[in-house]
Each structure stands twice: as C-alpha cells, then as structure tokens.
C-alpha cells in the first residue's frame, strides 16, 4: 500500500521535473541573494554559509510542498483516493517520503552552489549529506501535513509558511548548527547532541503527523 | 551586570505596567463590543419586525 502510494508520488514528481529544476534555480538564486545581504566579505560568508544553505532550502521547500498537492486538488482527486480501500496513513507516508527525497536532493544539489559562492567546502561529505537527509525529513513531515490543510484553504501561499516556519525552528536550529560544525570544524565535539536533537524532532513529527493525518483528510 | 545593583528604572516599571494594563483593557473592550454586536445582530435576525 505504502509502496503504491510512494510510486504514484515519485511518478508525479518525475513528470513535473521541469518544476523541480525551477525550484532548484530558485534556491540557487536565493543563495546568491543572501551573499549580497552580507557584502563581499568572504570570511563572514563562510561563517554564515550553513545558515544560508538552510534558509534557501526552507524557502524552496514551501514551493515543493505546496506543489505536492497540486495534482490532488485538480479534479478533486484526493477525494477519489480516499474512496479507495486504503489507509490514509499510507497516503501520508507516501507523500512525506516523496517530499523528503525531493528536498534532500534539492539540498544536496545546493551544496556545490554553496561551496562555490561562499568557499565553504568540506571533505566530510558523508556527515554533511546525513545532516541534509535528517533536516529534510524534519521539514517534510510537518510540511506535508500543513500542505494538506493549506492547499484546500484560501490564501494558501501565505498560510503554509505562516504555519510551518515557527514550527520547524528547532529543526532549523539543529540543522544549521550541525552543518556549520561540519564545515567550520568541531573542536568541542558538539555535533552528536545536535544530530540527536534533529533525529528526535524527526521521530516525534513523523509519528505524530502520521497519527493525525487521517483526521485532516477524512471529513 | 557583574553583580551590580540596577539603580533607578522606575520608567521601565511604569512602561511595563502601562503596556500590560492597556493591552488587557483594549482587548477586553474589543471582545465585549464584538459580542454585543453579534448578540444584537442575532436578535434582529430572530424577529425582524
């Protein structure tokens, strides 16, 4: 059931790959703009690079999350899906995993842009990618949930970031901190607590949103 | 800080109390007015002469 839902989502994403390309360009543009906010100070840019990377990913995520329900809203397809003898939880997890994969890919694709613009490279790519995977999971679990509500409400473009941004403050904080520890070095061994915080956030919201999702779509 | 005593500061105290009570007062008045309006509208709709 979950596999079928996930396959459907991935197929939809594959068909809208130009959209994904556009979101990547949007994220890269925002990374470029952040450097104008700081000015041509390469030391400061390197220092704040992880914050910029995550803000770029966060801004892009509102586009991809809202887009993930666009197909369902056309021709009231969501109601049709709910009529199938399937668990809405499978629907949620399929969508959340698809969003997670997409956001992780986006984050990993933004890393070279960050390295070029801010001179913030690292050889510890394995850890960096692990943090991006965990952080993207923290964005996609509540994001998929809120997108389900806001895609059916008025003023959806405003509402999704309004609800999502305050909620993911801890995930953002932990991701930024962990990324900057990987890039700038970790003399105090602080990386593990931040990664465990991120993992705890993911665990709480992946389970809580899965529990509550059926109430949101069935009424 | 370094353990020093904060001297003066009455203006901050007055500011804090003023902000607190004016926000509470304005909010209270606004919801009571909204409730009155809603009540009178309900009554009008119940028996429109």
């Amino acid at each position, binding site marked *: 059931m979950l596999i079928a839902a996930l396959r459907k989502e991935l197929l939809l994403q594959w068909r809208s790959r130009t959209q994904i390309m556009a979101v990547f360009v949007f994220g890269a543009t925002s990374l470029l703009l952040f450097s104008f906010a700081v000015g041509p100070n390469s030391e400061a840019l390197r220092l704040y690079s992880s914050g910029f990377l995550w803000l770029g990913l966060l801004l892009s995520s509102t586009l991809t999350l809202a887009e993930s329900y666009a197909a369902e809203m056309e021709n009231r397809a969501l109601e049709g899906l709910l009529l199938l003898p399937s668990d809405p939880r499978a629907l949620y997890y399929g969508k959340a995993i698809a969003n997670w994969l997409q956001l992780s890919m986006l984050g990993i694709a933004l890393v070279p842009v960050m390295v070029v613009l801010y001179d913030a490279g690292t050889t510890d790519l394995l850890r960096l990618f692990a943090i991006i995977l965990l952080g993207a999971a923290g964005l996609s679990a*509540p994001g998929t*949930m*809120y997108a389900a*509500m*806001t895609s*059916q*409400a*008025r*003023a959806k473009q405003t*509402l999704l970031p*309004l*609800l999502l*941004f*305050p*909620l993911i*403050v*801890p995930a953002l*904080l*932990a991701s930024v*901190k962990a990324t900057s520890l990987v890039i700038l070095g970790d003399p105090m061994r602080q990386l593990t*607590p*931040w990664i465990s*915080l991120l993992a*705890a956030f993911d665990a*709480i*919201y992946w389970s*809580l949103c899965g529990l*509550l999702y059926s*109430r*949101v779509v069935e*009424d | *800080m370094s*353990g*020093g*005593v*904060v*001297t*003066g*500061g*009455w203006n*901050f*105290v007055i*500011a*804090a*109390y003023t*902000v*607190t*009570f004016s*926000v*509470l007062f304005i*909010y*209270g008045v606004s*919801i*009571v007015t*909204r*409730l009155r309006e*809603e*009540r009178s*509208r*309900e009554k009008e709709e119940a028996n429109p002469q």
Partner: protein
Amino acid sequence: MKTGPAAILLAIGAYFGFVVAVAQFHGVSALALGLPSGAIATLAAGCGVAGAIWFLFANDQADSSAPWQVMAGLGVLCLAFGSYYGLFVAPPEQYMGEVQRIMYVHVPTAWNALLAMTLAFACAVIFLFKPDYKWDSRMEGAIEVGVVLAFLLCCQGAIWAKPTWGVWWDWDPRLTTTAVLLFAFLGILALRRFVEDPARRAIWSSVATIIAYVDVPIVYFSVRWWNSLHQQQSNPGTVSKQFWLPLRLNAFGILFLMVAFIMIRAQLATLRRKQEMAPPLPEVAELGEAV
C-alpha cells in the same frame, strides 16, 4: 456542570493563597494548619486554577453575561490590589532594584499564557475524541487569549531586558520560546480565518494546535542548547516572602481576567458558528432554485 464546586475550589485557593499569606505576614502561623509553605503554594495554585477552569466550562455556553462579569470583576480587583502592593508596598529587590517590580506582572503573565495554551491543547485533544463544537469555541478563545498574553509577555520581557542586560531582546530560551509560540498560534488563528467550512476548520485547527503545542518543549531545549552561555534568570521560586503576596494576587488577577476573556471569546465563536451553519434565508433559497 454546576458552578458550586468551582466556588468551593476557588475559596480553598483564596484561603491558602491570600489569607494564610497575610496572616503569616503578621506573624500568625496557626491558619496554615501546620502545612509546609510548598504544600500551601501548590494547594493555592492548584485549587485556584482548577476552580477557574471549572467555572469556565460550567458557564461559557450560557447566554447570559453575568458569569464572565463576575470573573472580570474578581480579576480587576485582584490586579488592583496586587499592583498596589507590588508598586508601593513591597520593598525594592536587593540586586535588581526597582526594576524587579516588573516581575509582579511578568511572571503571572507567563504562567497564564502557558496555561491558556495548555487549555487550547486540551480542548483540541478532547475535540478530536469527542466532536462537540463547544470545545472548538473554547479552543478558539484560549488560543486568542493566549496569543494576547504571549504578545504581552514579549513586550514585558523586552522592557525588563533593557535595564538589566542592556539590550531590548535577548536570545534567552524563555523569551525565544514565547516568541515562537506567539507566531505558531498566530498562524493557527490565520488558518481559522481562511477556512470557511466549520467542520474542517475545527478539525484542522485542533490538529495544528496539537502539533504546535508539542513543539514548545523542543523549542525550549534547542534554544537553551544553542544559547548556552546565558546567565541564570532570577527564579521566582526563590523570591522571599514579601514578594509572594503581590505575585499571587496578580497571578490570580490575570487568571480570572483570562477566564473572563476566554468565556466572552467562546460565546462569540459559538454565535458566529451558529450564523454560519444557519440555513439560508427563504428568499435566498427561492432565488437559488429560480436560477
């Protein structure tokens, strides 16, 4: 639900909150019934909050405006006495000086803001299990009043931070968590504005309230970790006996005022929902058929 038990609970709370405190202030300790001060404070706070919330649930669906007027009157009375004691009777604190007097409104606001959000969370959980719209009205009231209190808390925190730390805003865990909480619950109020269908609005905002409330401790601990170099805040648990009375009076004052506000706001929400759910007027229905 009847109002009687609420009155009894409130009376117990008032006895242990004020009568015993005033008597001890004058050297009479027989009224405390031999209880330690921690137990007295717990009894006062527990009975007061339980009584106020019982009163809220017993009366907020009534059409009359007498109950909330009682609560608002009690609240104004407590706040007037508490502020008088806090501003003019209590001595200035040893290190903080006069600025300490902000604490007498700041700490009660903080307790009640958290209480309002907790009430909203409880209403959200109950609504998901027992879909009765009165819980939705209560949740709307609690969220809105909680947002007002959280906003006040940020203002007071900024006013306190300026003379003590020299800056308006400090990335202190409590202040930051309050700000995050304020924006999260403002988002839920916005969600309620933009969804017209009452059933969907109720369920979605309950779910959003649960999700946002669960975030509070995570935000608190992450900010504390993030900003670990911060100096310890003065802990209201360690203040001396002279500070208890204004603190308790104001805490109960804001609690009663908050209950009155939530009652008004819940009645308003119920009235609005009735109008939304009312069948269309006959003329409109006929027009629709003609088209």
